[in-house]
C-alpha cells in the first residue's frame, strides 16, 4: 500500500519513473529548498494495477487499433479518446485499491481543497516536454472527488492531444502509464509563468503574470502582463501592459472566470522587485535542473511558491507545416467559446449569407471571357478566405460540443459515450427543416393522384402552380449545390427532385424518431445534478453546446452556398472551353480554368504509375472497420455516391456509401436505411444526421467508396462500427 502513494519528501532517484516527470521535478525542488506545495504522488503502479484488473489495457488497444493512426483525422482521434475516457469513467476502481487509496488520502488531506495533476513518466526529459497534453484539476474537495479526478487524469494519458503527440511521447499501449500528483492548493494573489529563456531570443527571459490563479493564463482566457528580461543582468527590457479585465478565482469545487475588481485592474500584478524575485528563482531552477525552464509560480501573501517547473516546451502553436499546434489550440475554454459564438452568430454567418447573395446577383453567363476569367479567380480567392475562416473560427467553435460532452459524461456516465449528442439534436437545424418541407411536398404527391402521375410521367402538365411556387421558394431558401433542383424553367419540376419526391411518397416515414420526452428527461437528469451557481453554468454550457451543434450545419450550408456560386462560375468557364473545342477541360483544376480562358496554356500532369501487385490474385474486401457513429443494425443494397447525380438515384432502404456527407446532400437521408462514410468522427454531418433519423451509421471507413460498389449487399453495424459486405469467399457463391 505504501508503495502506491509516496509523499514528496520520500521520493528517491529510483522512483523517477514511478512518480512521473512533474512529481520528480517537485521532489528535486523541495530537496533544493524551493517552496513547493505539500504533495503526495499516486504512482504509476496504481494505474498499472487498475488497467490490468479491469481489462482496460486490452480495451484501449482494441479502440486504438481500429485504424492506422496515420489515416485518422483529428476528430477521429478525439472520438477514440472520448471512448477511452468513458471506459475509465465507467470502470470503478477495484475495492482493495480503492480502499487503500481512500484511507491514505483521507488521513492526508481530509476535506482540504487540493490540485490533482498528471505526472507522466518521461515528460521531464529535455526535448520531450509537452505542456497541456494531460489533464490537471484545481480545487478538488473531498476524498471521493479526489479519487474521481485521479481517474480523469489517468484517462488523459489517452487524451486526443496526447494521441497527436504519441510518437514524441513514446505512447505505447502495453507500457505507458500515468502517475498522479495530489497537492494542497495555493490560492495565490498573483500568478504566472516564467521562461528562463525566450524561445525567440536566447539572450532574454520572459515572465507573464495575472491577478488571481494561473488557470486563466494557462488556458488563454486571461491576457497576462508580460516582461522581457535580460538573462545576463536580470534587467527588465520591456513591460507590455494589457487591459486587465478578468481573473480566475476558486469557486465551489473548481474555478471561475470573473470580472477583475477595479483596484486590481489599475495596477500590474507584479512590481519590479516581484519580477526580479520570480526571475532569480526561475534562474536558480534552471541551475538545479541544468536546462532552461518553464516555471509556474504563484505569490500568496507575498511568499513565492513554485507550482511546477519543466524544460521549455517543444510545442509551437503556429499553424505551419505541423498543424498539431493548431489542433491543440482548439481546446478552447468556455469563455473563449462564448466570444466565438457572438462573432459567428452576429458577424460571420450574416456576412456569409450576404456574400452568397452578392455572388448570386451577378450573372456570370453575361460576362465576356476575360471578365469571367477575372471573376472566377476573384471568387476562388474569396472562397479560400471563407474556407480559412471556417478553419479558424467555425471548427474551433465545434469544441463547444466536446466540452459539453466531457461534462455530461463526467456526471452521467452513460453507456453510450455519445448519448449527449441526442440532447443537442432537437434544434432548428437547417437541413432538418429542409427535410421536413421535402416530406410535406412528398405528402402532397402522395395525396394528389394527378400530381403523382405528372411526376411519374416526367411532365409538367397537371402540376399545380402552387406546387411549382413551393419548389421555387424551396430552391431559393436552401440552395442546391448538388443540382437536384436543376430545371429548365420555372414551369417544370426538376428531374432530381422528382425522383426523390416519388421515393419519399412511396415510403412514408413512420414518424421521426420520437425521442422528445426521453431527451427532455435526460436533459433534466443532467441539469439536476447541479445546484445554484453550478446549475446556471451547466445551463449556459448546454446552451452553448446546442448552438455549437446547430452551427455545425448552418456554417456548412452557408459555405456550401458560397461554394455553389464559385463553382457555378468555374462551370461556366469550363462550358466555354468545351465550346472552343477543348479536350481535357474536365481535368483542369478550378485554378487553371481562368488561366486557359485567358488563352494561357496549362501543362497537364502525367498520371502516376499504379502500384504493382500479383495479377493472379483478386482481392475482395468482406468486412471493414470504422467507428460506431449511429447505433443500429441495417442491411441493404449499397448506393455509392461518386457524383452528385448518384444521390438522386438512391432508393428507399438502400445504404448510403459516401466519401463525406455535407448538409447539402442530406435530403436523401430519410430514404436511406444506413450510412457509411469515409470521413471519420462523431461531429461530422453524416453522424449527426444519422442519429437524428435513428439510422445505423459507421464513419471513418477508409476507402469506403472504392471497396464498396453500388449494388453490393451490405450490413452496417452501427453498434460496433463495422461494415460487412456480403460476398462469398468463393467466386460466384452467395453466402448461405
Amino acid at each position: 500500500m505504501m508503495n502506491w502513494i509516496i509523499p514528496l519528501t520520500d521520493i528517491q532517484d529510483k522512483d523517477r519513473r514511478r512518480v512521473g516527470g512533474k512529481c520528480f521535478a517537485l521532489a528535486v525542488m523541495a530537496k533544493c529548498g524551493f517552496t513547493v506545495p505539500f504533495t503526495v504522488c499516486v504512482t504509476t503502479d496504481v494505474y498499472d494495477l487498475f488497467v490490468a484488473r479491469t481489462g482496460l489495457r486490452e480495451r484501449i488497444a482494441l479502440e486504438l487499433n481500429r485504424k492506422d493512426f496515420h489515416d485518422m483525422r483529428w476528430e477521429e482521434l478525439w472520438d477514440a479518446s472520448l471512448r477511452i475516457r468513458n471506459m475509465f469513467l465507467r470502470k470503478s476502481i477495484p475495492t482493495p485499491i480503492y480502499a487503500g487509496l481512500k484511507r491514505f488520502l483521507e488521513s492526508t488531506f481530509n476535506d482540504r481543497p487540493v490540485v490533482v495533476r498528471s505526472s507522466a513518466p518521461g515528460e521531464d526529459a529535455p526535448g520531450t516536454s509537452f505542456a497541456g497534453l494531460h489533464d490537471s484539476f484545481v480545487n478538488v474537495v473531498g476524498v471521493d472527488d479526489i479519487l474521481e479526478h485521479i481517474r480523469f487524469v489517468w484517462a488523459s494519458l489517452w487524451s486526443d492531444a496526447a494521441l497527436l503527440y504519441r510518437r514524441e511521447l513514446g505512447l505505447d499501449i502495453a507500457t505507458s502509464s500515468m502517475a498522479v500528483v495530489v497537492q494542497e492548493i495555493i490560492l495565490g494573489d498573483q500568478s504566472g509563468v516564467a521562461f528562463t529563456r525566450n524561445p525567440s531570443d536566447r539572450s532574454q527571459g520572459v515572465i507573464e503574470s495575472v491577478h488571481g490563479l494561473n488557470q486563466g493564463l494557462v488556458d488563454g482566457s486571461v491576457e497576462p502582463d508580460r516582461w522581457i528580461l535580460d538573462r545576463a543582468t536580470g534587467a527588465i527590457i520591456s513591460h507590455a501592459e494589457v487591459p486587465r479585465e478578468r481573473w480566475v478565482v476558486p469557486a465551489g469545487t473548481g474555478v471561475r472566470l470573473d470580472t477583475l475588481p477595479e483596484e486590481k485592474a489599475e495596477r500590474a500584478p507584479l512590481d519590479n522587485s516581484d519580477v526580479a524575485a520570480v526571475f532569480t528563482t526561475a534562474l536558480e531552477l534552471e541551475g538545479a535542473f541544468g536546462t532552461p525552464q518553464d516555471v509556474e509560480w504563484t505569490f500568496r501573501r507575498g511568499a513565492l511558491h513554485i507550482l511546477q517547473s519543466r524544460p521549455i516546451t517543444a510545442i509551437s502553436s503556429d499553424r505551419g507545416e505541423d498543424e498539431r499546434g493548431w489542433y491543440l489550440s482548439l481546446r478552447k475554454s468556455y469563455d473563449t467559446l462564448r466570444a466565438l459564438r457572438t462573432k459567428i452568430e452576429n458577424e460571420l454567418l450574416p456576412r456569409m449569407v450576404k456574400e452568397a447573395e452578392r455572388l448570386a446577383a451577378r450573372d456570370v453567363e453575361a460576362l465576356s471571357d476575360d471578365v469571367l476569367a477575372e471573376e472566377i479567380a476573384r471568387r476562388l480567392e474569396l472562397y479560400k478566405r471563407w474556407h480559412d475562416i471556417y478553419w479558424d473560427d467555425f471548427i474551433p467553435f465545434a469544441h463547444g460540443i466536446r466540452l459539453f460532452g466531457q461534462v455530461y459524461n463526467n456526471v452521467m456516465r452513460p453507456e453510450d459515450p455519445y448519448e449527449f449528442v441526442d440532447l443537442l439534436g432537437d434544434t432548428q437545424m437547417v437541413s432538418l427543416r429542409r427535410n421536413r418541407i421535402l416530406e410535406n411536398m412528398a405528402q402532397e404527391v402522395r395525396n394528389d393522384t394527378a400530381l403523382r402521375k405528372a411526376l411519374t410521367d416526367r411532365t409538367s402538365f397537371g402540376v399545380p402552380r402552387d406546387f411549382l411556387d413551393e419548389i421555387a421558394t424551396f430552391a431559393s431558401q436552401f440552395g442546391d449545390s448538388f443540382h437536384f433542383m436543376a430545371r429548365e424553367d420555372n414551369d417544370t419540376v426538376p428531374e432530381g427532385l422528382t425522383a426523390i419526391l416519388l421515393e419519399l411518397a412511396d415510403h412514408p416515414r413512420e414518424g421521426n424518431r420520437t425521442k422528445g420526452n426521453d431527451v427532455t428527461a435526460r436533459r433534466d437528469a443532467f441539469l439536476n445534478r447541479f445546484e445554484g451557481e453550478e446549475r446556471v453554468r451547466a445551463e449556459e454550457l448546454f446552451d452553448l453546446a446546442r448552438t455549437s451543434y446547430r452551427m455545425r450545419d448552418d456554417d456548412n450550408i452557408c459555405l456550401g452556398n458560397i461554394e455553389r456560386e464559385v463553382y457555378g462560375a468555374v462551370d461556366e468557364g469550363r462550358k466555354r472551353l468545351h465550346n472552343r473545342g477543348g479536350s481535357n477541360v474536365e481535368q483542369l483544376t478550378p485554378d487553371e480554368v481562368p488561366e486557359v480562358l485567358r488563352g494561357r496554356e496549362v501543362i497537364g500532369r502525367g498520371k502516376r504509375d499504379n502500384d504493382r501487385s500479383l495479377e493472379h490474385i483478386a482481392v475482395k474486401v468482406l468486412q471493414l472497420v470504422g467507428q460506431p457513429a449511429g447505433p443500429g443494425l441495417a442491411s441493404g443494397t449499397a448506393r455509392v455516391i461518386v457524383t452528385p447525380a448518384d444521390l438522386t438515384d438512391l432508393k428507399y432502404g438502400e445504404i448510403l456509401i459516401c466519401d463525406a456527407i455535407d448538409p447539402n446532400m442530406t435530403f436523401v437521408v430519410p430514404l436511406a436505411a444506413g450510412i457509411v462514410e469515409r470521413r471519420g468522427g462523431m461531429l461530422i454531418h453524416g453522424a449527426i444526421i444519422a442519429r437524428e433519423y435513428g439510422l445505423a451509421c459507421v464513419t471513418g471507413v477508409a476507402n469506403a467508396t472504392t471497396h464498396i460498389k453500388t449494388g453490393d449487399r451490405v450490413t452496417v453495424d452501427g453498434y460496433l462500427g463495422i461494415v460487412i459486405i456480403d460476398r462469398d469467399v468463393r467466386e460466384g457463391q452467395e453466402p448461405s
Partner: protein
Amino acid sequence: MIIQRFSGPKELVVSRRRYGGYMKSKKYIEKALRKLFETQYLAVLATQSGGHPYTNLVAFASTDDLKQLLFVTGQSTRKYANMKSDSRVAMLIDNRSNTASDVAEAMAATATGRTEDVLGDEREALTRLYLAKHPHLEEFATSPSTALIRLHVERYYVVNRFQNVTELHVA
C-alpha cells in the same frame, strides 16, 4: 471413455510429478483440460457451408463442468450464418508456442458438438462468465448486434506427446 497413455501438459509439471507422469485418471485429464482452457484465450472455430469448411479465431471461455464452450460473434458474420444453417462445429484449443518443440510438447483439444445462441435469462449469467475471462471484450459482447454462442460439447479429442489421442464423451 477410452484412456490412452497420456502424460500431463507441459505447464502441469507439478501435477505430473504428483501423478507419476502419466494420465491415470479421468480426473487428471479433466484437470488438464480446465488448465488449458484457463490459460488459452483463443480457439479455432470450424464451421461449414455447402460442405466447405471455414475457420475463425474466436476468444472463448468454458463452463466449469466442461460441457459448454462459449464465444461471441457479430450476427452479420459468415461464421454466424454458417452456424445458423448447420449448428455442428469443431473447435480447436491448444497451447503451442510456435516453436519446433511444439510437436512433442504442445497439447491440443478438439471439441465437437452443436452450437446455439444463448438467449433469455441465461444470457446475462453466461455473459458475466465470459467477460470474467475477457473483460476487454465488454463492448463487443454486450452490443445488440453480437450473439453469445454456446457449444454443447459432445466429444473432446485430446492430443499430446505428438501422437497420444484421447477421446472424451460428454454426457
